[in-house]
């Protein structure tokens, strides 16, 4: 597994990333496990609550698959792929501090994908560095990242 480090943020070459949802995905047998990447976690401030779509629920790429609340922010958890929710990581939802400690060990949703072609719209492998640097610059410009 290739690990990358972009300005202190760890990325993994074997995972897919969705820049709009701020999430990573690992895919096996048509099921995507998804979780927040380190930048996605940081931009919202300290998480207070996560409510995720229940198993059996259909979700659409780019649409809400739940909601997150941070200390000063509330917003959607965006589905990075379309499909049906197979499982929710209740342990992570119940222990939000753990997500910060281990973002890649803390998947949130397992989604059985209805359109594997959507993976082509995500970023992986060699394209990661440049894509992530762009995201980082955009969030810096918004002033939401600590200096």
């Amino acid at each position: 597994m290739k690990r990358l480090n972009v300005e202190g943020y760890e990325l993994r070459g074997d995972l897919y990333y969705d820049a709009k949802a701020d999430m990573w995905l690992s895919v096996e047998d048509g099921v995507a496990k998804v979780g927040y990447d380190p930048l996605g976690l940081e931009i919202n401030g300290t998480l207070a609550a996560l409510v995720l779509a229940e198993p059996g629920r259909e979700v659409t790429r780019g649409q809400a698959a739940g909601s997150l609340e941070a200390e000063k922010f509330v917003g959607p958890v965006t589905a990075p792929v379309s499909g049906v929710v197979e499982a929710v990581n209740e342990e992570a939802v119940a222990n939000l501090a753990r997500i910060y400690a281990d973002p890649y060990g803390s998947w949130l949703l397992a989604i059985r994908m209805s359109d594997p072609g959507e993976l082509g719209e995500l970023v992986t492998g060699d394209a990661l560095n440049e894509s992530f640097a762009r995201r980082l610059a955009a969030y810096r410009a918004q002033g939401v990242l600590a200096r």
Partner: protein
Amino acid sequence: MSLLENPTRPVTLRRTGEKAEGAQVSPEWVRISAASAIALQFRSGRFSRDFAFGGINLLLNYEDGCRSDCSYCGLARTRPGDYEDKSFIRVEWPLFRTGELVDRMAEKESSLTRLCISMVTSPLAYRDTVTITEAIRAKVATPLSILVAPPTLNRRKLEHFAEIGVDMIGIGLDAVTEELFRRHRTEVPAGGAGLSWEKYWSVVNDSRDIFGPWKVNCHTVVGLGETDAELIDLFFQLREREIFAYLFCFNPEPDSRLGQHPKSSISRWRRIQLAKRLIEEKGYQRRAFDFDSEGSLLNIDAPREAVEDVVEEGIAFMTDGCPGENGEPGCTRPYGSYRPTESFRDYPFLPEGMDLQVIRGELDLDGLMVQGGSDR
């Protein structure tokens, strides 16, 4: 779908078990509110709504914390947990080196509107507040308030605050009657640490003498068991003396003695906000407010159009806080007494459009106005 369950339940905010190494105490270190940390980019994060934010709140920090044990306060001595982990007014208050904080405030001075140092009840609080004030004043010109801890002060010390550049004094009266003050702040499990109704009022009186009209404010918490009549009577008493009343909505701190105590209904809160605006800024008299036998506000005897104008203006529903240099809102405490999933209790910006529609629904003016009311 309803994305967040039980959006008004108080929650504990904690990221990781980050612990301080060694003593990180004032005046070398100081806490700042979560919103201040985000605005100064010490912490990453964002606000749900887009608005300018420049009110920086500082809080003294000691290893043994605040000596007081107020029933509703996140910093109370008998609230379980390490002092370092305690939330205050709902959120974490991260610690920073005072020098680093002052430098960052100087760098961002053009976007700052008001600074405020909150003392805690500690024998070192006065000395350290002076040190921090002087450090700020050496580099930052933004107006500076002190939210004082009365048991640590006397008239001479208040005069010294004025001499070193403090322009406003806040007194966290919180409980609006002597009986409530005693119950929540004086006769408490860990002892009252010198908090008494008389001492607080003596500091109010001295501050008013020293700092002048409309330069002193009393914090009043809505939801500690007071009646509407008691609150409104205090607003009149303070207006008479040209002292601001600042409204705070009680918000239960998890695990505090009032952790299970409900916050006031949004409709009561909105009516209190409206009444205070009518009294403080529009000159209404006591006789314009009618109460039932329990002291709940029943009617406002005023021309409907005049009250509608106050609602439309929106200012009544903004955060009460010390102003900026030119009278603009200075201290706005976004999401200070409500979760971002709840209705704004006080708006950190001027509510307009849809926000005013929501406010009108919450206020239910039809149920409050005497038809064809007289003028004040």
